[in-house]
């Protein structure tokens, strides 16, 4: 049984002359929450897109050792011609969730992310950014993925929803799920993460266990993260 759910080895990716990723290697253990930190443009989204198969690396390898994978993008976009309910219905069908279970899942998971299920009768295009993000959470939660990759998990969410999402992540971890969370909001991730991977200018600068880092005397993730950046 492989305890590594993600294994990225020497990933390189260029966009024209821009070197987006340089020899990126890291791994994610089963049942953990990994914080993937980096500044804007550090290469977080590119790495995630390679993990998910949306981009191909120029070189290097990716291993994803699970059958059910979930993904919540930074700014989720949906087919403009579909209502929320239809999107969930299609997702459920695709992943073999039957009608009765589907209805109960919507009710249960909507409450978990603070989503007003009445919105499901409307086209997702008409939702606010926060509700689109919640919709994306809901779409992923009804599938119950083994590994959930989230790009900017708190983007567009109000403080109450941020708290709900944080609790949700902890619940998922208790259920044995694995989470890979990419963000530049370090303080929010620090509260819940077990592992940290820091990327800067397309290179991995640090990959460690948060407890280890604390034992080594690092007070908090933010200070550690800032120590990697050039001083102004």
């Amino acid at each position, binding site marked *: 049984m492989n305890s590594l759910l993600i294994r990225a080895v020497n990933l390189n990716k260029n*966009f024209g002359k821009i070197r987006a990723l340089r020899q990126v290697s890291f791994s994610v253990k089963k049942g953990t929450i990994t914080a993937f930190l980096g500044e804007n443009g550090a290469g977080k989204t590119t790495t995630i897109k390679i993990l998910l198969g*949306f*981009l191909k690396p120029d070189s290097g390898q990716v291993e*994803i050792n699970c059958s059910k*994978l979930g993904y919540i*993008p930074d700014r989720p976009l*949906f087919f403009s011609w*579909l209502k929320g309910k239809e999107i969930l219905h299609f997702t459920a*069908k695709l992943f*073999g969730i039957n009608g009765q279970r589907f209805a109960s899942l919507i009710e249960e998971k909507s409450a978990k992310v603070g989503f007003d299920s009445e919105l499901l009768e409307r086209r997702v295009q008409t939702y606010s950014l926060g509700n689109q993000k919640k919709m994306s959470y809901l779409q992923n939660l009804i599938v119950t993925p083994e590994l959930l990759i989230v790009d900017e998990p708190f983007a567009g969410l109000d403080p109450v929803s941020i708290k709900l999402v944080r609790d949700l992540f902890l619940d998922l971890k208790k259920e044995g799920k694995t989470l890979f969370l990419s963000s530049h909001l370090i303080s929010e991730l620090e509260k819940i993460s077990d592992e940290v991977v820091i990327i800067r200018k397309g290179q991995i600068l640090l990959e460690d266990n948060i407890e280890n880092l604390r034992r080594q005397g690092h007070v908090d993730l933010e200070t550690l993260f800032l120590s990697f950046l050039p001083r102004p």
Partner: protein
Amino acid sequence: MFAKTRFKINFLLIQKKVFRSKGLCFLSLVPGLVVFYILLTDSLATAINFFLFLFPYTFLFLSGDMMKDEIESGVLENIMFLQGEYRAYLLQKILVLTILALLPSAAIFSMLTIAGLLKGIFSWIYLLQFLAGLVVGIYYVTLGSWLSFYFRGGSNILIIIMAQIMAILSLFFSLQKKIGFLDYLEKGHFPNLLYKIKFIIFTLALPNVLIAKKFFLYLSVLVMATSFFLFRQWQRIKNLELKKQ
């Protein structure tokens, strides 16, 4: 099993898109409406002939919004399309739109056939023309979707229609000669290779002429062109990356 479910979901997704788009629905109904009007104002035989000439346009209109818009919009970056499944969606889109255009076309043709049989004016050549129309329709879908990699929704169709207008205008120029391209087209016989090549180019722009003139042999050109466009799209989709604009 999963592939079967995947196709079913893709079919439903695309079908919803077509039915929710008023413009697409209207355009796809145009050939049917024209036939209905002719049926009311003229004869059944004329209506059948018009239908056979026009129904491939349903395929063309449905191919209006195929690739570029969806690839660049970011909607495919969704849990439903992870691990390269968006490629299956895009490839299957060509097949689904072909089926969606075929269904109303086959339904109208069946009705016209029954009416023709009852009135005793049905000829088996109509069936061959319908099959030729299907080849033309499939050619339109593959050409439209291939163009949609480069042009936004609707512009791809506009380009094909512009090419058809140019092809028709070129016929007028041939009237300047004593015996020109139009005469050969009318006779269905082209005297030399140059005229044959001219006709092939004309056919690629306005393939419906093959149905009307019953030049079934030249359908092989369309089959080759369709295979080419399909192959190019398969190559493109196989290597496609989702780079949100």
